[in-house]
């Protein structure tokens, strides 16, 4: 399998961040579906199974990303999910998902801080897609 066989769903309400992420993923060779809200992401998930999903945490609500993780896990249990957010330590919430227990709650495979470099993101995706 090569990268162009995989479609990645990206949901982010920051148009610039969405543009950049999609740009970088396409450049790396993946196919992408880009949406700007939790609602749009849900509509996509209802009809289409992506090979991997990248969700922003805070969109319409503060926990949009969690809700999407939960919903996609329910429908497609084997689709890897990356949760990306700009907020972490400052909120006092530590969402590291190292332990099994936390994993079952947040249901994302990776938690990534926004601002990671494109190569890093690609590395993580390749690991998740077993490339």
């Amino acid at each position, binding site marked *: 399998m090569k990268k162009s066989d995989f479609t990645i769903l990206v949901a982010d*309400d*920051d*148009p*610039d*961040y969405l*543009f*950049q992420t999609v*740009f*970088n993923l396409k*450049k790396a060779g993946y196919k992408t579906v880009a949406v*700007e*809200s939790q609602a749009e992401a849900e509509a996509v998930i209802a009809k289409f199974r992506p090979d991997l999903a990248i969700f922003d945490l*805070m969109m*319409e609500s*503060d926990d949009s990303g969690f809700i999407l993780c939960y919903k996609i896990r329910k429908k497609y249990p084997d689709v890897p999910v990356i949760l990306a*957010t*700009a*907020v972490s330590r*400052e*909120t*006092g*919430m*530590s*969402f590291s998902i190292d332990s099994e*227990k*936390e994993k079952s*709650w*947040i249901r994302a495979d990776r938690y990534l801080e*926004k*601002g990671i*470099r*494109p190569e890093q993101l690609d590395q993580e995706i390749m690991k998740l897609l077993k490339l």
Partner: protein
Amino acid sequence: MAILKVLVIDDEPGIRSGVTRILKDFHVTYPFMDEDYTFELMEAPTGEDGIAVIERDKPDVILLDNKLPGIQGVEVLEYIREKKYDIMVAMITSYASLDIAIKATRDGATDFIPKPFTPQELKSSIENITKQLYLKRITRRLTEEGKQIRYQFLSVLSHELKAPLNALEGYLRMMQGKEAGDRIDDYANHIDRSLQRIQGMRNLIMDLLDFTKIRLEKKEGRMREVNLADVASGAIFAVRPYAIQREVTINLNVRSETKIMADPADMEIIFNNLVSNAVKYNKVGGKVDVTLDTTDSEAVITVSDTGIGIKKSDTENLFTEFVRIKNEKTRDISGSGLGLSIVRKIAELYFGTIEVESTPDVGSTFTVRLPRKSGNQET
């Protein structure tokens, strides 16, 4: 490791020992919790015994059967409610008496567990209750310390401040790596977007300064008689270049001379925000009406536009910090999400109100009412 005391009030020994067995080694975790919760079990066969245990041991959670030999479960619930004890109660009931359970939830029970239940059902109920209890306690603690608002505010603020930085960083890296081509023109859109994000961030910082100002109260020295017509003219003057660009006309209607005692800087913030919003969210060639009127008791400021309007469901949170209505029509309009919350805070500081009437695609009218005799703002 935190321990929650769970009291089981049920006349069937089998239920009591079953619950004890199931919860003995159970623990609940939650990403926001500092530690796991485990359970210490206590049992009571009647409501009377249950109340004795409540008084003695102050349990955190009660699993309460309704059908008991003496007083009924709902009476125990009533007792807890009257004493205002901070206890989460889940009713254990047979399916036949679900209506009682539902009534009990209205009377203060948190949950109900229909019996017979499987160990998994009991565990998920307890998990639920534990989370609710935890959130309730943490919320109360934060509220008591007056921190809750600040906490939310800071977390959202850090998000709002970091988002534009991330966007800028991303565009700069694309340029650094010549990702979109070798010519500077290949990056025209990136540069435009970067400049827009910088402007957005600048606006946020300006609004934030306003926001902190209204919290630092010591107004005695700054209260004076303010003619609102002057302030309105100033705000209209300031926004005029932008209005001309968008071909929006602004009219000021002074129905009666409107003077109130206020800090002029506060009044400027109100008018600047409302008038600039009315231009920003207007359609090209639209109209803004700023109207000042007075009643015996109030100064009434009305700012109407002929813009995109706001859906009814979106108006509820409109005056909350960092709430921006996101849709097709607003996506290219930048804003900090602070302006209207600042206006509301100032209005409330003067014991006034703000409200909005709006029809999508027709326009919005914001009305601020400020009491004219308001000599006691420093509360």
